[in-house]
Structure formats: C-alpha cells, structure tokens
C-alpha cells in the first residue's frame, strides 16, 4: 500500500461515515422495526409475550443485507451491493431486496443444493445414481425451483415418474433409495415428503406404505448405466390385493392396472391428514430461521410437538391456499420482524431459542463458505470425481453451491461438513466448528495462497487513493459493513507495531476479517 502513516490523518474523518442511528453494536438497532407486522409476528411475538420472553433488537441494515443474501441466494453481497443497500433511504428497501433476490439465478442454485441434499443427488455409492443421471436430476430439481414449480406438482412428479434415468430426470427419485426394495423407497418417501422416520413406525404401517411402491420395475438398456423405471402393470402376480392402506389408516381401492404410486401421491398432496404441507413449511422455516417449529425438522411425530402449533398450522394453510407456492412462504418469513431480529439475545432464558426470540448464529455452510472466500479473493476451486466411471470434471468457475453431484471430491467441503447425501437427513450437514477447520482457515496453504495471490485484493489496495478507503472497501467486501472507529484504531496500531509492513498489513487485515466469527457465522 501507500504510506501507512497517512492512515492517522484519515482517522479523524471516520465519524461522519457512521450510520444515522448510532447502534449499540453494528449488529442491532434500537429503533422500532420498519416493516409492518403480519400474522407470523402476531404468532411469534404473541407466544414470546405469553412466556414473558424479551425478543432481541431488530437487526441492523448491515446485518440484514448479509443475512438475506446468505439465506436466499447462498452468496455474499459484493461491496457494491452492500454499500448500495446501506445508503438506500427507502423504508421499503428490505422488502424490495427480498423480491430481487428471490429472482436471482443463485436462488435456484442455493435452494437446489439443499433439495439435492434431501433427494440424495449423488452418482456414487451408496446411492449409485451414476454420473449422467445425477447431472440431469440435479438440473431438473434446480429448474423446478427456478420456475417456482408448485411444490405439490414437484412431489407428484418425483413420486410417479416413469422412464429413463437419463431422459426422465424425476425417475431418479425411485432410484435413490440405495436399494430397489419397496420398503427402502417407502422410508425415503416418508422422510422426504412427510418428515417422518418410517423405520420407527409400526412395521405394519411401513409395509402398507411400501405396497404403493411394490409394482415398480427397473430395467437396463443397451446404453451404459441407463436404467428404465416403470410401472409394472403387466405383471399382476405380485399384486396381491386391490385394497391398500394409506399412512393415516384409511383404505383405498386400487385397480390392478393403475399405478399405486399415483394413488399415494393424490393422498399425500391433498389429504387433510397428510403432513405434507406442514413438513414443507417447517423445513423452510428451519432453513431460514436456523431452527424448526418442529425440531428436528425431519423428525415429525406425535411425541415431538411443534413449539408453536398455531404458527405451523397457519404457514401450512398459506402453502396450500397459495397452490403450493414456495416463494410465497419465503416472502412471508423473510419479511417478518421475527426473521429480522438481531442475533444478540435479550434474555438468557433457555426457552428463547425454541421460541425464536433471537436469530441463532450458524456457521456458513461448507459450499457457501468456499464460494464466499473465492468471491472475496477472486480464487477458484477445481472440482472433479474419478469414481465412479465415467469421470466427472466440473467446468472452471462453477461455484460449490451449484455442484451437481454429491460425489464430487473436495477436501475443503468435507472438512466443513458437507453432507454425504447418503440418507437425506438434514442432520447429515454438519455446520459445527472444529479445530481442524480453524487450522485450515488460519494456517493452510490453500487459504494463504488465495489471499496472497489474489488479484482482486491487490486491486483494492492499488486502486484506492487513501488507506481509509482501502479499509472501508475491505470491510464492505468481507463483512458487508463499514469499519468502526475502534477497529480503525486497532488497525493503525497494528500497522505501527507489528512485523507486517506495507501491503502485508492489508493482507493481514483481510486474513483477520475472514477468520472472524462475524465472517464465518451467519448472524
């Protein structure tokens, strides 16, 4: 950088940069929320009130912009995006940003990744979709999300599709249970669409559900690793009855030439007794709020009740009455004041978390984290998989959230808890910190080289006329906010007393910010 001594001169000019409302910390604000109060807020704050729990302050704009980018598009805001939002004075800017982000391409990438985790989109053992099928299945899922396909249709297609694993992507759902056993498929169906662990059901109930999936045939073709999934209507020998029992205990007559999967799908998406809608909204709530209304979100059962039953019922009703419009649910939640609370709790009451009295800290997901690091530094990763054959090589500049196959190798993603996509359980993703992760971020060549060889960071250093501007640019790029006066003073002290000289001060600043809990945690 230029003369670090200049730094001192500029410190005096920091005060005017600070936001109009002086926050307690840069993370929260004391002014009342700007968005109007909807039904979610009535139900969440009503419950908090009833329990005598104080909610956290609303989050600051800086926290909001970062949070909503990470939650909706799994992508860090750029310095320009962050500063534009921060300087926008419209009282409606949060809602406007939410609408904008829901239309971004990365929305489908990021939420597609979450769905591909649940649906076990993986070429290799133990799911064994095989590479090409994994690719087309992944694209189909992301297209459905991009086009906001009604969730009921999405589920119905997955449950009832017939055809080739290469040409009819949703048939891969029936291939992803790791086995052709109808019971394995029934378990996958219960987990994916009902949020229930069917292995814990009474055996009779599981057998009944399995019966709906007992007439599927799987056939190879002349093409390597192609497989046809079809309703085996010709062979009626394995169809030992025309009456089947649905998970709610009701009986249904099924003609021998009718695919029982379709009968089940009808029940699933339209029955009053089906947990389909409640499971869907609960999972979205978990993804956005960090905790399910039923927790764990894919373990719904009578003895694991929701923390706020009215809230779950209301959201389910909204999903059904909007014709399964998932974006409607995202909007409701994202625009609520409940979503926009600060992460700093106002109470240490142990009930606060389950009742959404503050926004919980969560470490960035593995894929989001490496993408964020690459966005900041302009670096890139090479992704490939050489098992199974044929080999898969992912084009350069593909972001981790857009990887089409859970078998793609990446030591970083594994270290940071990417799910193996073996079971479809949400808990396969591990966002807890470990010492190994800290070692990697603090001290590995991988991260060190990304910072030191970054043309992008170098251009921040060389294109800004004054050290203060450089500091601001780095803060906006990495933390999506302006530096505080105290932080600038700490940096000045560092430039004067440490071994680091010249540009190294700035690289150390970038390193320090990228290793802060503020960077690594969604907050």
């Amino acid at each position, binding site marked *: 950088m230029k003369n670090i001594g200049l730094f001192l001169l500029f410190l005096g000019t920091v005060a005017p940069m600070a936001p109009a409302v002086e926050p307690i910390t840069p993370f929260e604000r004391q002014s009342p929320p700007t968005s109007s109060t909807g039904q979610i807020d009535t139900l969440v704050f009503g419950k908090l009130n009833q329990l005598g729990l104080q909610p956290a302050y609303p989050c600051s704009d800086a926290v909001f912009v970062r949070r909503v980018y990470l939650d909706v598009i799994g992508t860090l805001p750029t310095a320009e995006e962050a500063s534009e939002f921060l300087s926008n004075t419209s009282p409606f800017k949060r809602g406007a940003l939410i609408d904008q982000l829901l239309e971004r391409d990365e929305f489908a990438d990021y939420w597609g990744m979450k769905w591909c985790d649940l649906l076990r989109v993986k070429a290799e053992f133990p799911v064994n979709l095989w590479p090409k099928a994994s690719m087309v299945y992944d694209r189909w899922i992301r297209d459905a999300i991009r086009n906001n396909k009604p969730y009921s249709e999405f589920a119905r297609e997955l449950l009832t599709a017939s055809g080739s694993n290469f040409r009819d992507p949703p048939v891969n759902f029936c291939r992803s249970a790791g086995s052709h056993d109808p019971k394995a498929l029934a378990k996958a169906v219960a987990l994916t669409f009902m949020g229930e662990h069917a292995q814990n059901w009474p055996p009779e109930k599981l057998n009944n559900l399995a019966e709906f999936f007992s007439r599927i045939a799987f056939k190879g073709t002349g093409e390597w690793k192609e497989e046809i999934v079809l309703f085996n209507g010709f062979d009626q020998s394995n169809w030992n009855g025309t009456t089947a029992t649905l998970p709610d205990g009701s009986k249904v007559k099924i003609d021998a030439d009718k695919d029982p999967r379709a009968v089940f799908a009808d029940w699933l998406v339209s029955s009053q007794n089906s947990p389909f809608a409640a499971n869907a909204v609960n999972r979205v709530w978990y993804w956005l709020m960090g905790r399910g209304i039923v927790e764990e979100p894919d373990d719904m059962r009578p003895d694991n009740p929701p923390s706020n039953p009215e809230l779950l019922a209301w959201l389910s009703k909204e999903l059904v009455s909007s014709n399964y419009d998932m974006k409607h649910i995202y909007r409701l939640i994202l625009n609520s004041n409940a979503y926009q609370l600060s992460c700093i709790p106002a109470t240490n009451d142990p009930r606060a978390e389950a009742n959404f009295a503050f926004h919980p800290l969560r470490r960035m997901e593995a894929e989001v984290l490496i993408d964020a690091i690459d966005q900041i530094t302009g670096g890139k990763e090479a992704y490939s998989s050489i098992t199974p054959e044929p080999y898969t090589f992912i084009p350069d500049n593909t972001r981790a959230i857009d990887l089409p196959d859970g078998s793609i190798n990446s030591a970083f993603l594994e270290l940071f808890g990417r799910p193996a996509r073996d079971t479809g359980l949400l808990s396969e993703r591990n966002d807890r910190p470990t010492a190994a992760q800290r070692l990697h971020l603090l001290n590995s060549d991988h991260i060190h080289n990304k910072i030191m060889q970054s043309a992008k960071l170098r251009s921040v250093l060389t294109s800004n006329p004054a050290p203060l501007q450089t500091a601001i640019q780095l803060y906006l790029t990495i933390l999506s906010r302006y530096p505080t006066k105290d932080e600038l003073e700490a940096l000045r002290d560092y430039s004067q007393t440490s071994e680091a000289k010249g540009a190294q001060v700035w690289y150390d600043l970038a390193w320090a910010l990228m290793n*802060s809990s503020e960077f690594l945690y969604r907050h």
Partner: protein
Amino acid sequence: MSNPYFQNPTGRPWTRRSALKCGALATAAVLFENRLGFALPETPPPAPQAKAKAIIQIWLAGGPSHLDTFDPKPEAGYDYCGPFNKPIETNVKGIFINELLTELAKQADKYTIIHSMTHGNNSHETAAYMVQTGHDSSDRLVYPSIGAVVSLLKGYDAGYRGLVPPYIVLTEPLGRFSEDGFLGPKYKAFATGGNPTQQPFAVQGIVAQGISSHHQEQRRDLMHNLDLLGNAMKDDSAVAEFKKCEADAYDMILGEGAKIFDLTQEGNAMRQWYGMNTFGQSCLAARRLIERGVRFVTINFNGWDTHKQNFQAMRQKLPELDKGMAALLQDLTTRGLLDSTIVWCTGEFGRTPKIMWDEPWNGGRGHWGSAFSAVVAGGGFRGGQIVGATDARGEQVKERPVYPWDLIGSMYELLGIDPDGTFPPRYGDGTIRITQVATGDIKSGGRLKEIM
C-alpha cells in the same frame, strides 16, 4: 489441501443434534477432546487381550500385481511373469519374493506373506471398500474404515492422550476409502498433505511457510481485536465453541504439534536409509508418529494401477517400496516397537496374472480380485511364514482363502478389539457388527490363528 481429522460427536448414526444436547463444548474437536474432560458414556465391547497397540497400513493404491511382488511364479512362463523370472530367496528358507525387493528379502523373518487373499471383486471402489472396512459392500450401511474404527475404540474415547489425532494419513487421503462411514467425521483420518521430502514438511494447517511465530502471534491479536461479534457475544455457546476450537488450533500451530512432523530432527543418514522419496519419508514420519502413541497411520502409496506398461512402473516403484518398508521394519524392531505395532501392506486387489502384451496395454495387467497378496508383520503376527497358496499361475486361491474380514478381524483381535462384537449402541442400537459375518454368498476362511 488439508482434510478433516476430527469433528464432532455425532450422537447416533447420521444425526448430530442429539449430541448438541450434551452442551456445546462437549462437541469440540477430537484432537483436543481429552483436555475437555468429555468422555462418551458407552463402554466399548469386552475386549480380547491386546498384543498390538498400533497399526501402520501401507496401502498400495490401485492394486499391485501379486505375481510381481510377493507371489512370484517363475514357472508360469513369460506371459505371466514377464521379465521378472528370477525371484530371490529371503532370509527365510523357501520364501521367495520379487528380485527387486532385495532389502525386504533380508527382513522376511519379521513378516508373513498371505498368498491367498481373495474377495472376487474387480472394481477399485468396491474392492477398496472391502479391504479397508472388513465388510462386504452389499449392506446398505456405509461402514467406517479400520482406521476410523481404531480411532473410535482406541482413540480419545478410550484414553488416548496424544497431541496429534490418533488416525493419520500420509499424505493424501483416498477419498471415501479412508473415511468415517456412519461413525461421523470425528473419527476421520487427519491427512497431512504436504511433501515429507521437502523442508519443512508443510503439514496442512500446522506448518505454514514464510510466517514467523512472532508474526503469527501478532496477527492473531489483530484478529481478536477486530472480532466485534465474538466480543459482543462472549456468553453465546456457539461463540464459545468457536473460540475453543481456535485456541486448540493455535496449540498445534505455535505449540508442540509442529515438531512432531519435523523430519530434520532425524538426521540425514536416517532419512537416506528410508529413501528420499515420498514413500520412504512417509515411512519415517509414520515411525515418529507411532513412537508418540498414534494408533493408526496409513501411508498411501499411489501408482499401482498398472494397466499399461506394468513392468516399467514396477522397476520404478518396487525399489521405493523395498527400501522404505524394509527400513521401517528394521527400525521398529531396533526400537522395540515392532512387537506392539502391526505393519500391514496390501492393495485393494491383485492384477491379472496373464500379461496383456497387445496395444494399447503394452505389457499391462488388469484388475484381479480372485487372488492377491498381503504382508503382515509385528503386533502379535508371527514372521517368516506363508499363509495359503495360489495355483500355478496365480489365478485362483488353491488353499486357505483369506477374505478381507478374516485379515481385518485378526488385526482387531490383536489390538484387543472384539471382531465379533458390535459398535457402541449409539450406532444402530448395538446390533451393527464390527466385522462381516459369513452368510449366504459371503464367505470366510477364518481368522489367521496360524500366525497369531
């Protein structure tokens, strides 16, 4: 790039949130768990008397030819043994190995060669899975590798107190074949990365090049001064957990951790003896780790998948294997460590006994799961023996078949782990077996009682 070596307790298979209920700090990293005073409630299954404390696994990735290594067949003719038609006799009368393995020939009294390894599978991933886990691949469960099982039953939960993790891979991991399976990432190997022939051996995360300790300390202070969120939320359990992980990481960076991997402390003569190549220096690093109590070290030695030009590859690789492994066996013996350390050398399968002379193979060998060799030494295995036999051309096992679960079960037994026992109840309610049971098409030749 670095790989995970520990993460959080997973509670029970596939779920981690149950572990959360133990409290946030209980879930800090394996490496440092001993210092947290956190012990898992379940006790391991009642154990046989342990003879071995540790295992060094030399993994010849890709599958080496058994004919060109430990099961030479000079009588089979040129189409089977190619140019290697003069096997040498070892220091044990009647045991012959490939003529390039001159140093190993002097150590044969220390090891036993199993000629009759078999599983019948010719695909890398399935074969490696079987040989690394001791389970057939037909089960829906994804089993952990033997290293991860040792890490579970002989690692921090069982009194291991080492600074470095109990399960280490030198230097690159083999993807899912060195994995934790349903045990969860806490029991995964720590892969060092880096190159042990270089100075320093830049073990990922632990040894950084070009940053002084003083500078490390200063920039750590800068980071702490700038950690606004962490400082504002000191009492939060997530922040406390994060800080704990960080403090533990710095113990490795600035503390003892780095010294363990400093091979210069061994002196040049010692390093030369092992061979100044990645495999040789990995063997030396493995010995240093075993000396410090590490339970399981895998040395991944790549390049044995010789579909093409097998013999050129062998001429390059066999001398490295020979020098490094022979030095390791001799050195462990001299230091009194071989009695308590199993050295185990194999790949996932053998290679087609009949050489493919045609284009495009030009003297290559394909995959061969019907018969292959393994070498075991130390830790309670007797040396100077041959187990089993293949037919005249090394194509089929002729006597005493040994399946992967027979061999791995034997090693578990020597380690004091009951191979017929089950994983602790938090994994599948106590019904999941440590090693494969022979059933239906899955056969067993029995454990290696003859050499134990």
